[in-house]
């Protein structure tokens, strides 16, 4: 796993290290989904595409994760798989079902605190803090 939960008072923080910026986004997306709910048997019903421009990587990452959280919260889309391609992320989703996707923790927001998405050697590194 190229992401991990790190200790943070009162909330949840994720650090990820990935070979490309797109993979970094995908790994953070996987982290978000993993925090929200368990998905023992994915059965995607659709796929959404998200652009990755790299103009402001940290802010773009926050916006991407925030969009995933919005779609989970308001459109009940549980994202169950992520694929990184040049300049894009494809995210598979299925309708959220409390029985198929046992809830772990609901998240309020993707914060700006200690937000980071930077080059790290040959790859990329990110830190994101979620408000629980």
């Amino acid at each position: 796993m190229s992401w991990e939960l790190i200790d943070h008072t009162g909330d949840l923080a994720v650090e990820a290290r990935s070979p490309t910026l797109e993979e970094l986004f995908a790994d953070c997306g996987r982290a978000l989904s993993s925090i929200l709910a368990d998905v023992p048997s994915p059965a995607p019903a659709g796929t959404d595409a998200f652009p990755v421009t790299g103009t402001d990587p940290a802010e773009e990452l926050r916006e991407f994760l925030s969009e995933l959280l919005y779609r989970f919260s308001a459109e009940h889309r549980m994202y169950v798989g992520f694929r990184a391609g040049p300049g894009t992320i494809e995210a598979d989703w299925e309708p959220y079902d409390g029985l198929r996707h046992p809830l772990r923790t609901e998240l309020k927001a993707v914060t700006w605190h200690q937000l980071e998405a930077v080059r790290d050697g040959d790859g990329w590194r990110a830190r994101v803090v979620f408000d629980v």
Partner: protein
Amino acid sequence: MSNLRKIAPYLYEIPKTGAMRVPGRIYASDALLETQKSDEAVQQVRNVAHLPGIVDYALAMPDFHWGYGFPIGGVAAFDLEEGILSPGGVGYDINCGVRLVRTRLKKQDLLPKLRDLVRELFRTVPAGVGREGAIQAPRGDDARALVTQGAKWAVYHGYGTPDDLDHIEDAGLFPGADPDAPSDRAYSRGMPQIGTLGSGNHFLEIQVVDELYRKDVADRFGLERGTICFSIHSGSRGFGYQVCEDSVKTMIKTSRDYGIELPDRQLCCAPFRSPEAQRYLSAMACAANYAWVNRQVMTALTRRVFARVFAVTEESLGARLIYDVCHNIAKVEEHGGRKLCVHRKGATRAFGPGHPLLPAAYRDLGQPTFIPGDMGRASFLLIGKEGSMRETFGSTCHGAGRAHSRGAMKRRTQGRNLFQELEEEHGVLVMAHGRDSVAEEMPEAYKDASLVVDVMEQAGVTDKVARLRPLGCIKG
């Protein structure tokens, strides 16, 4: 703790240095300060003191800990002409708050039916994730009415009674709500979630009064040892979270445009009188009203469950709202003859006796406020004293404050049967919607609330009225 000067047994000062406009003040005992693992939260108090127009002190209550920009447990008041308004000084969960309801049931009535009650409440009051709503989601004009009318909307729709409104801070209505101010996203996230608990540290708890400190006040609230109560801790759900997110995005840019220098980006703000600040205030008002409707609907659902389980009418149950308070809000209030914008983030209003904003039934007593502890130990009903207006802009603590991070709690609780532990060691029946909720919220995750409330009593801000022990708990 670096650079703190103890000025009273319960009070530390951060001297004004550098670009700080005022000193900082932290209400705490030596024991509580030792539980701060680092200087981060103290630094945040220092940072708040840099903001334009801040009056007197940047304050922290004894349950303070690290937050986004402003510390949780922070109170800061700003001049309306020279000062600012900051969404970070309120938090994502606008009008997260708590209410205490007392019943005519006694402990001996409750215990034989506790398991049934907890199970029925778990079934009836959802966490509100996915499609599980509690009531039909309001749409269109009805949704706009909800955010402008506040708790009155709920009573009008059959959730509660007019008497409830007299026992909610500001009668459950934040004035100046503009239904056009929140984004469409706030509505689409929030409306289906009306009447739901949410997750994290939100709860619906059944409690018994087990100690009285001010019997004179407890009598006025209809409380005695053995009285069964319930409390609900929740806020503005996705509606408020979205309002905050949208506003922080705007204010990060606005701070730059107005030339406001920030030691921390998350203190982003705008001058109080600016269009941006006023728009946030209007949107925040909508979210505050949403939260009151939310807690009002859950109260009504809880009353119905109690009545069903105990086979009594709601009237004979006598489930009377004692008071409902906000934890996260910014309000224009009068203090020392000045109109100020008081930000409370993880802090509770606690006006003293005689304040004109208190309901007539409580004006001679002072404002009640409820301080939830953890789900294993105790919570406290407090009453505001004259000292609160003098010391803390009429504010007190809001809870126990975390002792361990969520990650640390997951590690500490691995392999333990938490539900069994809670029942056998703490005497509390717990049901939780979210798998990680219980691990992250075990009693040991929190400091001892009694230490926190004792500091505010020493400071002359609030008095303890009663202690309540948990018997059953629904977690999000």
